[in-house]
């Protein structure tokens, strides 16, 4: 999806007393007031994809912190993605929610709460690639080993080693497509959580797109830059999947209502 900058129509185009919209643009300036075409549709529809995940076992295990750091360094990015995101998919409905897999293991199998806390507070939103998340995890574990060398002696009990898994993602288009805000909002109500996860998480980190897909399309194809920024601001790592859906829908609804208020006056 290429990013297009949509400009507000610079000159007033008057027909019979009402603003006219230049073809392909959603805005018109009428007497100094900005109006938006409610019927404006994007040239390129937003196609909702879904990413369905199959979990593959790697057979790679770690029983100590040096082993964990070593394996995090060596393992493929599909594994890092899995262990920093699977809890979002699997456990975010739980209250209180468990942290990412590395933090959970350090707490449950090794019993070191300070390190577990440090690992659980890694701000995934602050990183733009799996590689940078990997480096951050290694740095936290190695930093702790340096500060507290006795951590090297901690070993997980038999059967409670850290098992490295990886995500195999199957990406497929759904039948849900939107060309304007209302269609987008309606689709968002119906798509599965897997679809929302794909566009919010996977597209950004795993496919290394600059931002989440929703914000990208809203800005580039509908000119809704502010709306896009508001969605970027949602922290998807601290709420349930349904919570993310409701949050985005709220932002969309508010914008749709605001646009209805800005409607062009009826021609008389």
């Amino acid at each position, binding site marked *: 999806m290429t990013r297009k900058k949509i400009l507000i129509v610079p000159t007033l185009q008057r027909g019979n007393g009402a603003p006219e919209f230049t073809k392909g643009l959603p805005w018109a300036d009428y007497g100094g007031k900005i109006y938006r075409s409610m019927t404006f549709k994007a040239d390129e529809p937003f196609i909702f994809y879904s990413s369905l995940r199959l979990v593959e076992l790697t057979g790679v295990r770690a029983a100590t912190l040096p082993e964990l750091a070593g394996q995090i360094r060596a393992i493929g990015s*599909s594994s890092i993605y899995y262990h920093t995101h699977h809890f979002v998919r699997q456990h975010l409905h739980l209250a209180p929610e468990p942290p990412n897999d590395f933090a959970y293991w350090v707490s449950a199998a090794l019993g070191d709460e300070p390190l577990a806390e440090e690992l659980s507070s890694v701000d995934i939103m602050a990183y733009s690639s799996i590689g940078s998340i990997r480096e951050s995890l290694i740095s936290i574990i190695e930093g702790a080993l340096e500060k507290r060398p006795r951590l090297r002696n901690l070993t997980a009990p038999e059967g409670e080693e850290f098992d490295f898994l*990886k995500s195999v993602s199957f990406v*497929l288009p759904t039948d849900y497509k939107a060309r304007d805000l209302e269609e987008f909002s309606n689709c968002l109500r119906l798509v599965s*959580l897997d679809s929302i996860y794909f566009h919010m998480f996977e597209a950004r980190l795993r496919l290394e797109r600059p931002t989440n897909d929703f914000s990208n399309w809203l800005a580039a194809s509908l000119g809704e830059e502010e709306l896009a920024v508001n969605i970027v601001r949602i922290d998807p790592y601290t709420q349930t999947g349904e919570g993310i859906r409701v949050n985005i829908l709220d932002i969309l609804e508010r914008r749709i209502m605001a646009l209805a208020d800005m409607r062009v006056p009826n021609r008389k």
Partner: protein
Amino acid sequence: MVKIEEYEPIVGKGVLHELRLLAERLKGKSVQNVNSTAIGGGVAEILNRMVPLLRELGVDAKWDVIKGGEKFFVATKKIHNALHGADEEITPELWDIFWDTNMKNSQELQCASDIVFIHDPQPIGLVNQKIERRNKWIWRCHIDISQAQKQTLDALRAHIMRYDAAVFSAPAFAKEFSLRQFLIAPSLDPLSDKNKDLPLSVIEETLSAYGIKSDKPIVTQVSRFDRLKDPVGVIEAYRKVKRYVDCQLILAGGTAADDPESVEVFEQVKKQAEGDPDIHVLLMSQNDIHINALQRASAVIVQKSVREGFGLTVTEALWKAKPVVASSVGGITVQIKHKHNGLLCHSVDGAALAIRQLLQNPDYARHLGENGREHVRQNFLLTRHLRDYMLLFLSLYNAEDIVYL
């Protein structure tokens, strides 16, 4: 027969839409499931639901059952126990019976589908047909093989390696096999007799049918009578609880056609329970409504397994929002996050303490139960299982980590 649309109120429209999209991608591929029993145990139960739904979605799926005599099932039970880590001696004679029976089944059962899906070790030898057919083969291991007896696993290893992929229920079961290994948890069917909502009258009638009064809190373990489910350990834990909380215990289960030991274990449990009118040992024929009602009548559900491939009875209890005390073994650890949606234990004493905590703190018990139900809704319903199996079939034709369909 339940239709796929009936799951929509539980899982939502989007999930069913995705199942249909996946089924479309499998058009033209046939799938053949093979296991060793049509009735009894979790595998048969899942296949009974799974195969018709796959067909309804448009996947050409079928299910065959291998045949075997009494000695074959003695051998497979020993192999099963040994893979679970028990100290079993499998004589060369029993191995001969095992492989001969596999060979005979292989001659009678044509595994010519595009994808052959073998469940558990009993029919593992059918993979010999792969050379001539050049189709895709998956071995679905429902057993906790994390501490498998080495010589038994080694005896099966050469056959396992002929498969294109293996599937396990928990990460700890993965081995250093050079084939792709996937993690797929089993599931329950929320619309089945065993899991659907029941009116209070049915629960009361069921208790009355077994002569159980509801005047004391009920602690229940539902499992077939099998040493690996440690029913005797459950009685010991109950006796420790009973010193502080006046409760009753139900041990309910049946026998499986492929488990010759279960009658013997049942007799041992009955003997252990003698003299206590508050212990109800129920040998039940397949009666899913009754199992459902007993689970719903319980204050606490226990699953004190020594080994556990997955532990569907735990899933069933969680789905009914029941507080669960279960051993920290095998697939149970995939289902229960300790203190988040249930309590894990490692011993009789640990189980007793956890049961007491739950019986004496009903608000805490309710909180764990509610979290448990949500956890099952998100991760362990049949629709998720159907999706994973279809993805597994598709993965046989795609080796990448990101697959665009």
